[in-house]
């Protein structure tokens, strides 16, 4: 039986059936793999949090090396002593705080809800780390990361990631040579909170001054860099109340 494939009605019918068939195949595939993909994402988050507090397999120089995925769950429960959720003045403990979607919380906060702020307290060799998740905008799309502070609110490490910054330029925010510069930087100027600025021409390209609240920018990635500055400032600012208490307690 020869079908007249040139008829408009046939063309439309074919397109409709094709879309339905392909659509259902894809949704089947998506739900089949969903569990595994979610698990990978959870492990990745744990790796990132640990990375920010200096638990990683980095060598002296070179590339970013996370704790391997088969070990990360154990290491996470070993080093992360407390996971807190801060809601206004209320602070509760929640072992799944790291799964809180900070982007959703931000949207909810805009419509008046009290924002849930996750905070992770890690401990390594007797030293406490306060790890704050961050979320912001780069040039093309979302950027996010984690910043870990000690009791004096000095940065102990950061991790940045991005969805679609320009490879070779903005995408370099997730490279060691950029992230390592944040270590030891102050987010306070004397006692005032000002965050850390990613800036050009601060006469300190090798980043020797740790008290200037400045980190050398990436060439060709001004807007991504500004995004990082804004992200640190806005995200950490949300925790200001809690952090001040930590500092005062010391």
């Amino acid at each position, binding site marked *: 039986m020869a079908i007249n*494939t040139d008829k408009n009605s046939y063309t439309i019918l074919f*397109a409709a059936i094709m879309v339905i068939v392909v659509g259902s195949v*894809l949704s089947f595939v998506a739900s089949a793999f969903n569990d595994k993909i979610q698990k990978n994402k959870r492990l990745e988050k744990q790796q990132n949090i640990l990375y920010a507090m200096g638990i990683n397999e980095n060598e002296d120089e070179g590339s970013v090396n996370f704790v391997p995925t088969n070990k990360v769950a154990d290491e996470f429960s070993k080093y992360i002593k407390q996971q807190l959720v801060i809601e206004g003045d209320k602070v509760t403990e929640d072992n799944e705080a790291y799964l809180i979607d900070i982007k959703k919380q931000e949207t909810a906060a805009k419509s008046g809800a009290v924002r849930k702020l996750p905070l992770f307290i890690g401990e390594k060799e007797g030293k406490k780390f306060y790890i704050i998740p961050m979320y912001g905008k780069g040039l093309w799309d979302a950027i996010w990361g984690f910043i870990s502070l000690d009791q004096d609110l000095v940065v102990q490490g950061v991790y940045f990631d991005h969805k679609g910054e320009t490879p070779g330029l903005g995408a370099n925010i997730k490279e060691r040579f950029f992230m390592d510069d944040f270590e030891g930087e102050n987010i306070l100027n004397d006692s005032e909170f000002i965050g850390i600025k990613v800036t050009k021409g601060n006469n300190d390209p090798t980043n020797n001054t740790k008290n200037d609240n400045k980190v050398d920018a990436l060439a060709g990635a001004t807007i991504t860099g500004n995004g990082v500055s804004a992200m640190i400032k806005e995200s950490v600012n949300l925790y200001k109340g809690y952090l001040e208490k930590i500092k005062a307690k010391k």
Partner: protein
Amino acid sequence: MGLLSKKDANLILDPLADTNPITVQVLGICSALAITAQLKAAIVMALSVLFVVAMGNVVISLLRNIIPSKIRIIAQLVIAAALVIIVDQILKAYAYELSKTLAVFVGLIITNCIIMGRFEAFALGNGPWRSFLDGIGNAAGYGLILIVVGFFRELLGSGTLLGFKVLGDPIEKTGLYAIGYENNGFMLLPPMALIVVGIIIWIQRSRNRALIEEN
């Protein structure tokens, strides 16, 4: 090749050399430049494209008599895109790290000219078995170049192969590094991939002069 007739065998063998999609037809160059800094990424990309072209060719070939010619390009795109999404999901589930390295390039397999080229030029006019072989052949030709380029870029750029330090340790100064050898960081940048591909094209054409175009 007892399994295949000579004509069928040529469907696989020709694209490896004389009609190679990258070095002769110069298709799919963009992905060849982007993901060949590491051998592992090159191999995964080659396998992903192999899956998409071979499966896509078979599907298109099976549907070739019922696809309306007015919307055949769209139908090809939908099939390529669906297969790419499947590959992407599989990578995310079983090779998450790698899927982050390949990131947008997996998505960009859809726009890889080799795929649409084979669908349009071959699968629409041939049976499923021959289309399958043609897909395997072309993807293998593409993958072969990717792997060769990836091999040299990772070896000369990072001194490693599949992550193993084959030339010694650059920090500890062992192996080749003990006598003053340095990694060439330039090999890791996309322009060097183009130069490596250029060298392969040069070697291939000097061995097979029939490929040189007349002016």
